[in-house]
């Protein structure tokens, strides 16, 4: 197992190199003047320089490989250019907006994965009964409903009609409190607890409900379907019959014997889902005007803020590759058949 993990960790830089080269190739669709922006982290130093001179200075007409190595060098030194939409260097913009996205993802994981597993196994145990049909309808609606439509509906009902859960990340009255308190993590719920600001904590949680509900509703379909079919298959195995004939209660059979084995494919799917969630927040954050990294990327995309878009792509690639690695390692740990082979 250790050699497997070591091999994966050694391969990580190779994968990242491939990814960065692909992003670099995508950048070649831009003109040299547009690409120039990716090199400038401090726009105040630009005043008075002619673009041609700068293109020459940064060697944007050099050969592809020379340009790539220079660009990569820049990135490794943390220089990703300047995002005009939020008036911050890209690295700083990521540091500012990522905690918000992380907060949303962390709060979504629990209902998505555990809710999905609970409903999926419930449906399998009551195969073809009323609850199974309800769960299946829920899954197929969630699957066919685009995230932005689900989000708009949630907004219309929970904010427009009931006025329970407003959009945004915090209420306006809370902004000065956030500004003054010590921000340890940038994750407002944690910071609010650390600062003893419980009114703020409630406000942040209140703003999280609608986006988390939207993400859960559209993401349940995948986990639900996989858990359900995997459970159905497992429940038909001989060892389950043996367990039942030993006189175990149905509860024990399901919990201790069936579900544990049925969850193996679910782990893979959950990993993929979690990794894609960071990117998937683009839509939810835009709909709810929740200022995370996805919101920033949408703003950047509509305003031709290329350094931001490229920085966002790079950041997502690194995140996804890392999360995939962690999931694969967990997978090996969880399944003895893989561990031993």
């Amino acid at each position, binding site marked *: 197992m250790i050699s497997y993990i070591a091999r994966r960790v050694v391969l990580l830089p190779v*994968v990242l190199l*491939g*990814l960065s080269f*692909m*992003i670099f190739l*995508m*950048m070649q*669709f*831009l003109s040299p003047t547009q690409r120039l922006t990716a090199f400038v982290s401090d726009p105040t130093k630009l005043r008075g320089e002619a673009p041609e001179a700068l293109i020459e200075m940064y060697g944007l007409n050099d050969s592809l490989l020379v340009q790539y190595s220079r660009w990569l060098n820049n990135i490794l030194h943390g220089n990703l250019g300047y995002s005009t939409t939020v008036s911050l260097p890209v690295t700083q913009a990521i540091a500012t907006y990522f905690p918000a996205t992380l907060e949303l993802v962390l709060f979504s994981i629990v209902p998505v994965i555990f809710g999905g597993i609970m409903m999926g196994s419930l449906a399998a145990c009551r195969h073809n009964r009323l609850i199974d049909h309800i769960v299946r309808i829920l899954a*197929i609606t969630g*699957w*066919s*409903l*685009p*995230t*932005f*439509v689900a989000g*708009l*509906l949630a*907004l*219309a009902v929970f*904010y*427009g*009609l009931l006025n329970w859960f407003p959009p945004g990340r915090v209420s306006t009255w809370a902004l000065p409190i956030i500004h003054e308190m010590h921000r340890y993590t940038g994750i407002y719920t944690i910071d609010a607890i650390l600062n003893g600001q419980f009114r703020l904590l409630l406000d942040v949680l209140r703003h999280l409900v609608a986006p988390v509900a939207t993400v859960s509703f559209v993401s349940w379909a995948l986990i639900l379907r996989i858990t359900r079919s995997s459970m*159905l298959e497992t429940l038909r195995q001989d060892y389950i019959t043996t367990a039942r004939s030993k006189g175990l209660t149905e509860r024990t059979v399901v919990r201790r014997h069936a579900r544990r084995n049925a969850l193996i494919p679910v782990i893979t799917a959950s990993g993929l889902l979690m*990794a*894609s969630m*960071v*990117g*998937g927040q*683009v*839509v939810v954050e*835009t*709909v709810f005007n929740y200022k995370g990294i996805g919101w920033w*990327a*949408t703003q*950047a*995309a*509509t305003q*031709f803020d*290329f350094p931001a*878009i*490229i920085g*966002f*792509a790079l950041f*997502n*690639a690194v995140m*996804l*590759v890392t999360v*995939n690695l962690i999931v694969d390692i967990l997978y090996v740990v969880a399944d003895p058949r893989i561990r031993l082979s």
Partner: protein
Amino acid sequence: MTVLKKLLKNPLSLIGVVLLVAFVFVAALAPILAPPPRPTEPYRIPRSGFKIEPQAPSVEHPFGTTEGQYDIYYAMIWGTRTALRIGLIVTGISLLIGVTVGSLAAMSGGWLDEILMRVVDIFMAFPFIVAAMVLATLLGKGLDKAMIAMVTFGWMGYARLIRGDILAVREKEFVSAAQAIGARPFRILVRHILPNCIYPVFVQATMQIGSMVIWASTLSFLGVGAPEGYADWGQVISFSRNWIISSGPNPFEYWYTLVFPAGALVLFVLSWNLVGDALRDILDPRLRHGT
């Protein structure tokens, strides 16, 4: 029993087929159902005036108008064409690229297989929507750019699927028999191997058509897909964002700006998903008997 008969027997897939046929009819009859005022530019939604506030359904505008007085009914009818076009073209080209790459990898084996599959891994290392959004932005936005971006990051699943299936089929006796009588690799692939492993890929493609239309409308909603005023459901839905919450006494005063285009989109995706789901059950030999 033929596939079509089975599709029509299951109530869920029957609903899917009926919906799908209805959408195809609407798309085909678009010039009659909603005659374009400018025949050269049928995808430009006509607008009556430039007032910002949406107008409720009336005789003149059966589904009302959205922000900027774009006619919602017209957008829905011609949007059906846009949706079908996006779904079929994006999925078709992705399928073609995926099957070509996957077959090449599986048939050649060795270092070429290794390289192609690592390229697939790298393309898959992005969340689809992020990759498509970034590429569409870098290409300069617009519906065609969004479609190129979706194809660029949409073919890998097919490549992996067909490669695995070919590797399994390649070892069968009938392939050895074909090799023994001197058939060339290309002929073996096209005449003997592909017909035996293409169905799962087709099922996958059917299910993907709905998803692709969702993603395209999402890109339009995010502002990197169809331009303002283009007959595309996602683009029309993006207008409703500012109007779903009304400050007036009735919170759902502008309901028609969301309900009609979103309803069309959801039904369209649902129909493909229902058909795809049923096709999978029908064509998958493991599910054919038993459950």
